[in-house]
């Protein structure tokens, strides 16, 4: 995407992040309106950038690390705008927007050479898309978990401050956590399956036990356990919040693993 446009997007998300954080700590209704406006502007610019890339290449740009992270950030902001504004929970922006901003920063900082596999097979493209969408689900679960722990801590310590006032009720956050994982998990499952098929097609084996594949499988098992634990032994509320935060750390590690790889290795994924 054009350099100027990506800086504009970065700038808007940055300002939006600051505004949302300020909103979180002040009792101002004006701040949040401006914050949502800035985030919306950033999202529009981001969508335009993606649109330009699609026109130029005929495909959603996700095949490089940079593009994937950018697409991830775009998806996060989309979720915020849809879920947050529909439910009147602008406060979600104070958590989702910084995450989107950080992923965009990491996209910008990523070495340029960590890019480029030609999507020889359609399955690779599907694999990447599904994995990113699944990750968005886990990211939202992470945000919900983080907010849950904050609110829980405030209530337990009986601190009735602005933060306590603005954070949503615990059960809402727990439900959001669960639904996000329910959204992300099937996508990750399909992502891993299509990844295996792609590997079979490109290098001839479904699984070559490289670190990313192992991490991805561990992540999958972990979230599976989280989902099962909720249904069977009541891993909800505080425990679910902790688990999803840990799980997301695993997801980030997988990403870093991919970032460290050479272009050739990415093709092997």
């Amino acid at each position, binding site marked *: 995407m054009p350099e100027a446009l990506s800086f504009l997007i970065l700038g808007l998300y940055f300002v939006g992040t600051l505004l949302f954080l300020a909103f979180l700590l002040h009792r101002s209704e004006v701040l949040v309106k401006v914050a949502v406006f800035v985030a919306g502007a950033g999202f529009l610019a981001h969508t335009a950038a993606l649109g330009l890339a699609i026109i130029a290449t005929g495909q959603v740009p996700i095949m490089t690390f940079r593009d994937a992270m950018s697409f991830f950030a775009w998806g996060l902001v989309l979720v915020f705008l849809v879920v947050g504004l529909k439910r009147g929970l602008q406060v979600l922006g104070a958590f989702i927007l910084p995450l989107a901003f950080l992923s965009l920063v990491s996209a910008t900082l990523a070495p340029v050479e960590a890019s480029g596999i030609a999507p020889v097979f359609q399955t690779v493209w599907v694999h990447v898309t599904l994995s990113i969408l699944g990750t968005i689900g886990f990211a939202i679960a992470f945000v919900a978990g983080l907010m849950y722990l904050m609110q829980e801590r405030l209530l337990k310590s009986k601190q009735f401050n602005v933060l306590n006032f603005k954070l949503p009720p615990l059960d809402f956050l727990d439900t959001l956590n669960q639904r996000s994982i329910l959204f992300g998990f099937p996508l990750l499952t399909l992502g891993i399956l299509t990844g295996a098929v792609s590997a079979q097609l490109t290098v001839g084996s479904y699984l070559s036990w490289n670190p990313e594949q192992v991490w991805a499988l561990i992540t999958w098992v972990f979230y599976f356990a989280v989902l099962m634990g909720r249904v069977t032994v009541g891993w909800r509320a505080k*425990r679910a919040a902790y688990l999803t935060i840990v799980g997301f750390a695993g997801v980030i590690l997988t990403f870093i693993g991919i970032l460290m790889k050479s272009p050739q290795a990415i093709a092997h994924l």
Partner: protein
Amino acid sequence: MNIIVLGLNHRTAPVELRELLAIPDSRIGEALSRLRAYPGVKEAMFLGTCNRVEVYAVVEKGEWGFRKLEDFLVATHFSLSSEDLLPHLYRYSDEEAIAHLFRVSASLDSMVVGEPQILGQVKQAYELALTHRSSGVILNKVVKKAISVGKSVRTNTRIGEYAVSVSYAAVELAKKVFSNLEQQVVLLVGAGEMGKLAAQHLVNHGVKDVLLTTRNQHRALVLAERFQGQAVPYEQLRSTLPKADIVICATGAPHFVISKDDIEGAVHQRRNRPIFLIDITVPRNIDPAVKDVDNAFVFDIDDLKAHVGHNQDERLKEAATAEKMVKEEVESMLAWVRGLEATPTIVALRKKAEVIKNIELEKAFHRLGELSEKDRGAIEGLASAIVNKLLHGPLVTLKAEAQSQNGFAFIEAARRFFELQERDLHVFESQSEEAEAGNEASEESFSQKDRQ
């Protein structure tokens, strides 16, 4: 003419006295007509709530009016004497009276600043005055404005946003755990007054399932009827706990009724679904160690008070904003009321006629060119005669009717007919420097009309 208010409130009088002065709605009509029967009381409204009893009136002379209103209040109850009553009364007139009503309506004068009931009570008092035709042009306008000020304070400040009663704080805290109270089950343990209040607040906020248990099974049944809930034998408290999302504990017991073990067991059985506990009594009924149980949230009376205290601070901050809003509105209201006096209206009308006459004469002389002194005099005489004859009727009527029951209606009508702005009335009343500016402005508007 004066707008006056005579009354007492939670700060000036004990509840026993306020109770005596209460007038049931069914007898308000009779009371209001009794008020209107005092000669010189042109308009009246009675505002009675559990925290205040106030009579608003428009009277010919303030001092005299206060005495009539005192007589009226003393007469509301046979056991009252003026010695009982007088020390508790406050008296405001004109600007202060309007400001007082606006502050009352904005709930700035309430025991709990920002409480929502008072606005409805002012509305009701006004409707009763309307029904019984005891209010007139002035009170209608002033009270309507007070209601709109009250509304605007509620919508434009956050004065009503923070819970300020302990029992209500419980609801607000519960909402930080449960997003939808309708689906939650409340267990009320004991029959303490505060506990019942908290349960009532929760029911008002949508809670449908209420379980009740007290040592005295009969009491539990009575409570069950009140909350349309279900009474549970006290011995089953422990086994009932897991069913409850919200537990309110208000027994008179001098020891812990709910232990840490109980809650650990309950949370386990609930598969970690959070449980919210309110301990509203002193000494406490829930072991404070419950706070160490994950997914159990316990708040005692001090926590609730802390929550309320925090909210009270917030409300007072908002109240400062509200006071400013009220002040602005009082000023513009006052300008309107002052304009209703007969004298400034008459002066303004004469002045306006004079201005029009002079402008028209000026134009005519300009068109006619050189005129002899005599011609000029004749034309001026003609213009003056027309203006004076035209105004004679309205002015005489105004002067005469100003003293009557409908005087303000006449003055208001005259102001509308002759397009006399409140600003003009002001200006003519206080012959200040601003008067010059005002005159210029009005002259400008006349000449604009001429051009059209």
